């Protein structure tokens, strides 16, 4: 199977596409509809749209907005942000979402199980946001604000046990830095669970993607690598060929 390469699009409360660095300092990227159309033309493997303000603002998913986005997607669409109930998930699936990504809500084993029981494990993924500190790796929720006190391996095993069919492991420390994934973290989680693990946080070029796959990830995702180019982070929508991923090349290459 070809490994999936997944652009992650962050949308804010004003429905704009933004990108953060270490979960802060969001900069404006563009209009999500334009960007999705460009990714359609590039035949991306999968798209992930995250409403990064929903949970913090106590909002549920904006289903009409997601419907409009989904109608542009001829590729699989994962949505995350503000999903709090099986009904929220059902409404999203109905408008064309394949998979819901639970962040803060992933700690609710009952919700994970509820969605998996009705829609199947393949329809529910958990995003494990990880920050490293004095106590080692710790899982955080609420956009990195709340330390859940769990280590990522135990947490990932718990959500898989509850029914999640995929784990997205995201390094908060590496987010938006373009220096590569936290490969130790990716490897540790990927080798601890039987479901696919997606690496997120830190990829800046195709060598980083390849390294993420090499560490054991089933798929590699990035919010920056496919929308920015160069040190000044000019916006340019790009996407690698699968051929690029298959053949080792020098560091620092672009595609």
């Amino acid at each position, binding site marked *: *199977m*070809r*490994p*999936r390469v997944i652009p992650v699009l962050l949308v804010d409360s004003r429905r704009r596409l933004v990108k953060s660095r270490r979960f802060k300092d969001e900069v404006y990227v563009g209009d999500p509809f334009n960007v999705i159309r460009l990714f*359609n033309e590039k*035949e991306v*493997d*999968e798209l992930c749209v995250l409403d990064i303000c929903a949970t913090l603002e106590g909002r549920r998913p904006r289903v009409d907005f997601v*419907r409009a986005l*989904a*109608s542009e*997607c*001829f*590729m*699989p*669409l994962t949505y995350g942000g503000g999903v709090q109930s099986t009904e929220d998930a*059902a409404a999203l*699936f*109905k*408008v*064309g*979402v*394949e*998979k819901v990504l639970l962040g803060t809500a992933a700690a609710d084993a009952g919700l994970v199980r509820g969605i998996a*029981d*009705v*829609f*199947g*494990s*393949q*329809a529910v993924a958990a995003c494990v946001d990880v920050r490293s500190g004095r106590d080692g790796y710790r899982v955080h929720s609420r956009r990195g604000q709340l330390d859940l006190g769990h280590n990522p391996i135990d947490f990932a095993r718990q959500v898989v046990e509850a029914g999640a*069919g*995929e784990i997205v492991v995201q390094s908060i420390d590496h987010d938006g830095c373009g220096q590569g994934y936290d490969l130790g973290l990716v490897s540790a989680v990927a080798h601890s669970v*039987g*479901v*696919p693990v997606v690496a997120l946080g830190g990829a800046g070029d195709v060598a980083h993607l390849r390294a993420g796959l090499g560490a054991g990830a*089933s*798929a590699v995702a990035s919010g920056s690598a496919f929308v920015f180019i160069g040190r000044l982070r000019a916006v340019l929508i790009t996407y690698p060929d699968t051929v690029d991923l298959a053949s080792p090349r020098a560091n620092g290459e672009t595609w």
Partner: protein
Amino acid sequence: MNIVVDYGVGNLGAIINMLEHLGHDAVASRDPRSIVSAARLILPGVGAFDQAMARLRELDLVAPLTEAVVARGAPVLGICLGMQLLGRSSDEGQRSERGLGWIPADVVKLSPHEGVKVPHMGWSEVSPTRASALFPGGNEVPRYYFSHSYCLEPDDDRDIAARCDYGGTFAAAVARGSVFGVQFHPEKSHRHGMALLQRFMELT
């Protein structure tokens, strides 16, 4: 009329989006009379076998679907779980529900060799076993998006239209008369999926 069966489990929006993009009219419906007389039927499905069959029964859709497909021979395309519902039974869940039984087949859990992860989630190439309405042949190897933990296992290999290798092969598509099923998601598989849905929509 082309009908995407709306029984509460399935990504109807994505299927209708792609059909509209291809220039076909299709409506989401759970109206038994419309289903009985449908030109073509698409049976979507996301989720668990038992719940899906229970919903079809609650909505009294099994009889109209059977009349359209079996008695009248209207082309039907089951997608993902919708393909699995074409079989008799599933290992998933409590085995409390029987399938539609239009294809002699049972649903089994994927059991790839060690080190291969389940669910099977992602893009895989598909090998048609023979020329069929869904896969007319040609040089390009089609690839499609899969997202599943179970697969349909027909009694008779001749009902298999295409196979996929994911740590061992399984039926990626079935075809028996006017009954078709695909384990992957053509509505989410770019031009490969568009071409397949286009071929299905040309069937009469």
